[in-house]
């Protein structure tokens, strides 16, 4: 795959959702959209304008929003219910558990403003635990697209999928890595770069940082395999396993607590299938975020390319010592 890493276009994954939602609505008249007073922030405005009778604003009431969505789904609608990830799946978690997952209601839960890169709003609005609390729910698919185009495809795939979906999206304009024609298959991890020394599994817009790290490492003759994990659940163990059986060396990258997130998911699956390789986890290390610009926060919380490079070298030296 070719990546324009030096000067990429910048578009937000939440914008991709807005485009995908409209397209899904045009394709299927059963698609409806709900929000909890966050129409523009979650980019549902275009859908609202086009389909005013299929758009519902439930006000600042996330629990009701999710359960109402479930009711709509049980009546053959395909509801996309959006809010900030801290509020939904945060505040609405139990409703997701019962109304959506236990009943297998065809609801698509959309959480935007995930991660520290939500920025100046600060810790209260930066969801760092939403992967942990969703991937543990039975029947729920969890997707975190890496860029704008992938977000469009993920939204369309969510609409097609029969069953609950959680879609994790970000506020910030981030690097466009893929294109409109890049393949996307729900549940299939993507190898963005082939390599032999180390496996780097990343999710969401941080995959761009992983690609930058790969270039740096390449300059030092370290060959990294970059896997973009857009579908966190169900986990594509086969692809990851094949990679680590080759490299025996793993860095996981996520804008999320390392406890319970993608790193945990990968390592827990690997440990049961094979043996967990020497691993470093890039992610939030059991703290909350804070106000700042996205760029500053990526540096401060060690989520950027140089941090990934450092983690890669650390884990490589451990591998060599074994």
């Amino acid at each position: 795959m070719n990546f324009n890493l030096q000067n990429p276009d910048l578009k937000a994954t939440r914008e991709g959702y807005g485009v995908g939602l409209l397209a899904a609505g045009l394709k299927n008249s059963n698609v409806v959209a709900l929000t909890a007073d966050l129409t523009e922030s979650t980019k549902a405005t275009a859908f609202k304008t086009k389909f005013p009778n299929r758009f519902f604003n439930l006000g600042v009431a996330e629990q009701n929003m999710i359960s109402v969505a479930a009711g709509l789904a049980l009546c053959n609608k395909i509801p996309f219910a959006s809010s900030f990830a801290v509020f939904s799946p945060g505040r609405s978690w139990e409703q997701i558990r019962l109304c959506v997952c236990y009943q297998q209601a065809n609801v698509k839960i959309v959480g935007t403003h995930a991660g520290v890169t939500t920025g100046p709003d600060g810790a209260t609005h930066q969801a760092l635990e939403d992967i942990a609390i969703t991937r543990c729910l039975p029947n729920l698919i969890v997707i975190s697209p890496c860029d704008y185009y992938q977000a469009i495809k993920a939204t369309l795939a969510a609409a097609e999928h029969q069953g609950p979906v959680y879609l994790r999206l970000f506020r910030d304009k981030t690097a466009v890595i893929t294109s409109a024609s890049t393949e996307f298959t729900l549940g299939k991890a993507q190898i963005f770069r082939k390599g032999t020394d180390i496996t780097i599994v990343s999710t969401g817009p941080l995959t761009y940082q992983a690609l930058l790290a790969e270039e740096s490492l390449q300059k030092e003759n370290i060959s990294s395999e970059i896997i973009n994990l857009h579908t966190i659940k169900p986990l594509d163990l086969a692809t990851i396993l094949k990679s680590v059986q080759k490299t025996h060396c793993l860095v996981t990258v996520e804008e999320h607590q390392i406890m319970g997130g993608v790193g945990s998911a990968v390592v827990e699956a690997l440990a049961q299938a094979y043996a967990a390789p020497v691993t470093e986890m890039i992610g939030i290390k059991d703290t909350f975020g804070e106000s700042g610009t996205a760029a500053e926060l990526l540096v401060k919380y060690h989520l950027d390319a140089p941090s990934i490079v450092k983690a890669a070298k650390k884990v490589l030296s451990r591998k060599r010592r074994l």
Partner: protein
Amino acid sequence: MFTGQLDLNQLKLKAKEIRIDLIKMLNKAGSGHTAGPLGMADILTVLYFSVLNHDPKNPGWPERDRLILSNGHICPLLYAALAHAGYFRKEELMTLRRLGSRLQGHPSRLDLPGLETSSGPLAQGISQAVGFALAAKIDKQHHHIFCLMGDGELDEGQVWEAFMFASKEKLGNLIAIIDRNQIQLDGTTEEIMPLEPLKDKLASFNWQVLEIDGHNLEEIMVTLMQAKVPTDKPVAVIAHTIPGKGVSFMECKSAWHGIVPDEAQTQLALKELEQL
């Protein structure tokens, strides 16, 4: 299509049969909730045997009225009503709460035809009912959505979120029936979280509010049929009931909210119910 529209005498007999089955089911199960089911038995009987438009042989009939149980813990009553209405065989009632049973401790939609939703955690049923009512409105359908609720349930904030939204969307096809039995798990509602003035609260949320004696079969029937008349307001029916109704030593005691009768109590209860 009704399952057989029963007259008042037949309804009275049916409610008695359902109460008797309830006591037997709960004793056999060894755990569950007693006061709520006994208290709401008259209303469920009127619903399934007079007011609801439904077809037990076709639980998915698109034009059916929907009944959603938001206070999911009183599901033994719903199961009994469904069985008596012909959704499944009455023998199955004795499997309540057992491993592998379709009659789960709290309603599991996927397990049992006739259940519209899963519920248990309070306030989620009413929100789902709002979703049902909204879908019907979008699709220009004319069936009604009934949602049974507990009064203790009204403590949950989500309930009021649902009430506000239902009013906003003018869901005149939605009828909430609140079991105003004045008890919740830890004591009376007015001790734990006072609800009065309840009628005023509901009216201030722009719902049409009706009140009934939850044990007067004729009043229940007439009021629920009245509630079906479409307006642009959702309807709340405050049903004054006696928790544990029908068994003298169970009536009006919050202790009977979450326990079931033992062998001796079961025999006493059945003896009283047979006299009804």
